[in-house]
């Protein structure tokens, strides 16, 4: 079943069109990789799906579980099951990670009409997940991402993904700024979350990440469009030949 349907999406930022009619369908259980050179519009797509302000959708639509995503505020999208793992997770001094996690989880549950987590249940869940991600407990007492290394920030994103249990995860350049060990831990965390009911969209510049998170479908983006789609072998082909051929095609 189609989880995410992006249809002929046109997006402008400050009078400049970035996406020129992008179409993409992601089914439940699938992992899609979106590759492309800098400036091809990969991050713009992820931001528009999550609802970041500053983007003007001039045409097309985004359906999530058949509902019009563009009509929803970012928090409504999150409660419906959309999760964006940020390329650069922000630091929020003064907001303890644990408090943030609980507030966010309960806000989502409240929006869905579910009961809030009790403190013991919440703590148990956080402990389980953070252990599997190699996140020490004292990190959870600090301000959100404050003083975290690049790897810790990305692991904190995966921790949230595991806690919130979204049905669509968008990973925006998860590999940026990570060394191989940090990348492996984060990727293992992501792989553990693969399930028949959950889809993932992995946005990356490099093929490297896809050695760890193996996609079902690979899309190549150039100049605001998907110019080619294929299996995981397409990523290897790109690694060998580069993006130049597609820039001409677009």
């Amino acid at each position: 079943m189609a989880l995410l349907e992006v249809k002929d999406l046109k997006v402008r930022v400050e009078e400049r069109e970035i996406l020129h009619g992008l179409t993409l369908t992601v089914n439940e259980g699938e992992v899609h990789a979106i590759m492309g050179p800098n400036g091809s519009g990969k991050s713009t797509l992820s931001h528009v799906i999550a609802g970041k302000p500053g983007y003007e959708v001039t045409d097309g639509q985004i359906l999530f579980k058949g509902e019009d995503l563009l009509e929803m505020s970012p928090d409504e999208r999150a409660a419906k099951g959309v999760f964006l793992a940020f390329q650069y997770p922000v630091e929020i001094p003064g907001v303890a990670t644990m408090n943030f996690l609980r507030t966010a989880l309960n806000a989502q549950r409240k929006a869905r009409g579910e009961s809030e987590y009790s403190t013991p249940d919440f703590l148990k869940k956080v402990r389980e997940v953070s252990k599997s991600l190699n996140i020490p407990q004292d990190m959870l007492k600090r301000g959100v991402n404050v003083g975290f290394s690049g790897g810790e920030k990305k692991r904190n994103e995966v921790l949230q993904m595991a806690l919130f249990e979204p049905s669509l995860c968008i990973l925006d350049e998860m590999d940026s700024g990570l060394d191989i060990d940090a990348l492996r831990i984060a990727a293992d965390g992501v792989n553990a979350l693969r399930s028949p009911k959950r889809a993932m969209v992995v946005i990356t510049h490099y093929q490297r990440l896809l050695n760890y998170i193996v996609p079902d479908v690979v899309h190549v983006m150039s100049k605001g469009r998907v110019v080619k789609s294929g299996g995981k072998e397409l990523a290897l082909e790109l690694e060998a030949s580069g993006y130049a051929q597609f820039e001409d095609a677009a």
Partner: protein
Amino acid sequence: MNVAVAKTGKGRAVSDLFTSAEGRLPGSTAVTAVRREAFETYERLGLPHRRIEEWKYTDLRALVGEVLPLAAAPDAAALKRAADAVKTHAIAGARKLVLVDGVFAADLSDVKALASEAGFKTLRETLEKDAGLLKTTSTDAVIALNAAMATDGVVLDIADGAQLSAPIQIIHIATAAAASAFTRSQVTIGKGAHATIVESFVAAGSKAYQVNDAVIVSVGDDADVAHIRLMDDAPDAVNLTSHFVTVGANVKLKFFNMTTGAAVSRLQGFITLAGEGSELFANGVNLLQKTEHGDTTLVVDHAVPNCVSREIFRAVIDDRAHSVFQGRIIVRPDAQKTDGKMMTRALLLSDEAEADNKPELEIFADDVSCGHGATAGALDDSLLFYLKARGLPEKQAQALLIQAFVGEAIEQIADDSLREHVIGIAERWLERRS
């Protein structure tokens, strides 16, 4: 400017007020003379206005206009309302001293429980013998008016070496609408004593009232003191409070003020570090909305060498509210090795919000480390989006960031239940935001 100009029609209204209240103001003949003298000072000055440098940003003639008549002593119904308010605003475990419309309410207070730990009298009682507590050398009109009109207050004497087992909470409750309460208190903390003093200002169904409070604090050598003031008066009230604090040697004093109420308010604190080796932490939070005007003015006087002062001030300003912070650090010629720092930050939640910040360093010694910094800005959009993308609705995301913003000033409150009490007041302010 000559005297005739200062004596406006509004000054005249106070004159009538004083005459009509004089018979109800406690004290001996000697006290009456002191009151009269203070009142004459006030009458000569009139309400402070913007041409007086210290009151430049808080023009009481424009903002307040007139001083309301003295509140009547609370009747049984008023005391009943006050008793309900005490239940809401009391800090669990604290020893309460309650003033209702400027009059001490013994039945609502924990005088007996306090007796084993601190000496206690009311201002009214001390004025039967002595006018000392009303005497002032200040040329500030608001302080002079307080001396002239003060009806009651608490006089606390914490003995040398006393280790208070619980905070003392002075609760000012307003029940009378469109009237003024004038209070003056004294807190004397002995050498080596350990005490937490909390002052709370709240309304019990009252509207458009005015408070003029003064507190004289002296802290003995080696004492460890937390002094917390929580001004949560009615949204249309006026609160003018003056603190005079003298600190001995090797003292650790943590002062914290939070303003969450009143249409017009000013806390003016005059703190003198008079003994060497002391540390002062003076933090403040202004949470203002609608058209509220909140002024925090602190003068920290390093009169001796080797003291440390730290001021952290945070203002959160919504709608068309106006926050003022004036911080002056004086370092006297002998006060070498002074370490004084002041950091203020304002968070503007609306385009029409206003923050004025006036740091002043008056340094007369040559071997000191003093500094100040100030910032003003809006909530960070990237942080807001991150929180919203995690499921927090706009208002809740803002609330979390606002709490984090003021957190640095609040976190110095070491006692958990006290800090929770303070955070609870801030949360109720956040819920009142439109």
